[in-house]
């Protein structure tokens, strides 16, 4: 059973990111984003029969049921997705699977991150209070300060530079282009704050070779989408974003155990998505790529098949990645400049691709958007989910 053309994204909602929240609950944010997305699709809550969310601290168990109850939805499918930054893209795939299998017809997928100033997590944050964590990561990584993601992506960048070479200016250009895009998105956390390549290279070195401006800044926010069946999508009045292809590949949890630091699981995920869609790389009008760090984008450009291995730096030199350039990347500003609201940061690549296909991105709308490639990346290049979204479901 192929998922090609089986579902469409019919509604999207996204909060303007903020540095901090005050007195918010994640559940409340998840629910508001979900309701906004349902309304955006022109549907009533009663028409939604599936709910997908991510794990969240307030409901460490039975998160889907907690949300179902809060929303007052009668769910035939209630699920949690746990794929790190690839969760948003993975929700689309799982909603499509449930709908295509006939379990339900319309699924709301919602993600949110609150960030209270007092309780904001320091660093890895796993060590506040006693815990029982018998994961290999806790035993063989964390005692060495291998905590969070910065160190891992830095080691990827270091190895990539060793094997293939990429100039710091080329990596910096990725951050600069996304900041340009963010300066055309009033919702972006860095709206109105353009940067140059020199700004990136002169920003403090955090973990060699990554500078501060090559690293995402955590924010609070929420994002949700409504995925519905082809039958229902065709009856809606507004444009929708059709799912043409999906692929997924997970290889490791800790970067030390990745099969390779420079050849990621994105290749397998993207190949499957393109194959299912029957779309070629050169047909893609928009790249909506998970961007926790500049190096992530460079690897994704190569591993998803848009540039040969080792040629990512040249690709960045030869193309404009601005929304008004010849190879539009993350018109909303990406996580690097729109903001990374936890799991909702990864969902932002789905919401922006859907909005662009629907023609609803305002001043940053790209000229032609028939086909969008979305890649979600979780952990330290651990979980990969690729999606092909299109204006037509045919």
């Amino acid at each position: 059973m192929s998922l090609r053309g089986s579902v469409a994204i019919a509604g999207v909602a996204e909060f303007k990111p903020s540095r901090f929240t005050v007195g918010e609950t994640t559940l409340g944010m998840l629910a508001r984003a979900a309701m906004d997305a349902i309304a955006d699709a022109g549907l009533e809550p009663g028409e939604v029969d599936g709910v997908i969310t991510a794990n969240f601290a307030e409901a460490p168990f039975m998160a889907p049921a907690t949300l179902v109850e809060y929303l007052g939805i009668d769910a035939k499918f209630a699920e949690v997705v746990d794929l790190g930054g690839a969760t948003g893209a993975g929700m689309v795939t799982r909603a499509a699977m449930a709908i295509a299998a006939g379990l339900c017809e319309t699924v709301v997928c919602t993600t949110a991150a609150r960030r209270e100033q007092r309780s904001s997590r320091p660093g890895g944050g796993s060590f506040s209070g006693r815990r029982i964590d018998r994961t290999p990561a806790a035993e063989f990584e964390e005692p060495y300060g291998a905590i969070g993601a910065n160190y891992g992506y830095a080691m990827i960048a270091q190895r990539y530079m060793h094997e293939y070479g990429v100039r710091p200016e080329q990596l910096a250009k990725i951050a600069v282009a996304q900041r340009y895009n963010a300066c055309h998105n009033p919702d972006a956390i860095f709206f109105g704050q353009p940067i140059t390549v020199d700004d990136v290279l002169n920003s403090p070195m955090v973990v060699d070779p990554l500078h501060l401006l090559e690293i995402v800044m955590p924010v609070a926010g929420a994002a949700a989408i409504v995925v519905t069946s082809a039958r229902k999508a065709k009856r809606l009045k507004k444009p929708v974003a059709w799912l043409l292809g999906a692929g997924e590949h997970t290889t490791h949890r800790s970067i030390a155990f990745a099969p390779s630091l420079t050849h990621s699981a994105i290749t397998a995920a993207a190949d499957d998505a393109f194959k299912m869609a029957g779309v070629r790389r050169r047909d893609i009008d928009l790249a909506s790529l998970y961007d926790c760090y500049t190096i992530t984008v460079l690897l994704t450009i190569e591993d998803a098949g848009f540039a040969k291995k080792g040629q990512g730096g040249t690709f960045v030199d030869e193309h404009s990645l601005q929304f008004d350039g010849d190879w539009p990347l993350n018109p909303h500003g990406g996580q690097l400049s729109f903001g990374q609201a936890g799991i909702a940061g990864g969902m932002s690549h789905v919401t922006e691709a859907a909005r662009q296909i629907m023609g609803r991105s305002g001043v940053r709308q790209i000229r032609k958007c028939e086909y969008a490639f979305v890649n979600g990346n979780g952990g330290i290049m651990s979980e990969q989910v690729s999606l092909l979204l299109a204006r037509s479901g045919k």
Partner: protein
Amino acid sequence: MSDEPQTYGKPLPEPNTISKPYWDAAKEHRLVLQRSRKTGRFVFYPRAVSPFGADDTLEWVDACGRGTVYSYTVARRATSPQWNGDEPYVIAIVALDEGVHMTANIIDCSPDSVRIGLPVEVAFMDVTPEVTLVQWRPLGA
């Protein structure tokens, strides 16, 4: 990094029945690894099952204690608050001669002297009376 056991405030491994031989050996300043009886290939970290098949079993053997830096970063800012004041320090993936990868710090050298491919040897850091961390230092340092 602190070498005063009583003030050690960083996360510590909590050995379990599977990993106990590894940490017990480290305490004796020995590096041991699991090896597949079927394929002869080494496995790290310690596991309850062999990744090479249900008919395989793993045996503990002494490792040679040599390797090279596969990749590394110099943390100019602490990666977690417990490392505040230790910057700059090196986090690395070491490729052991046995063919497995391991995360560790490269110690006993200037962080800026570390390079990919640097030959390293195992070092043992007694961080508490109970726990010895397996670390790596430049060969002959």
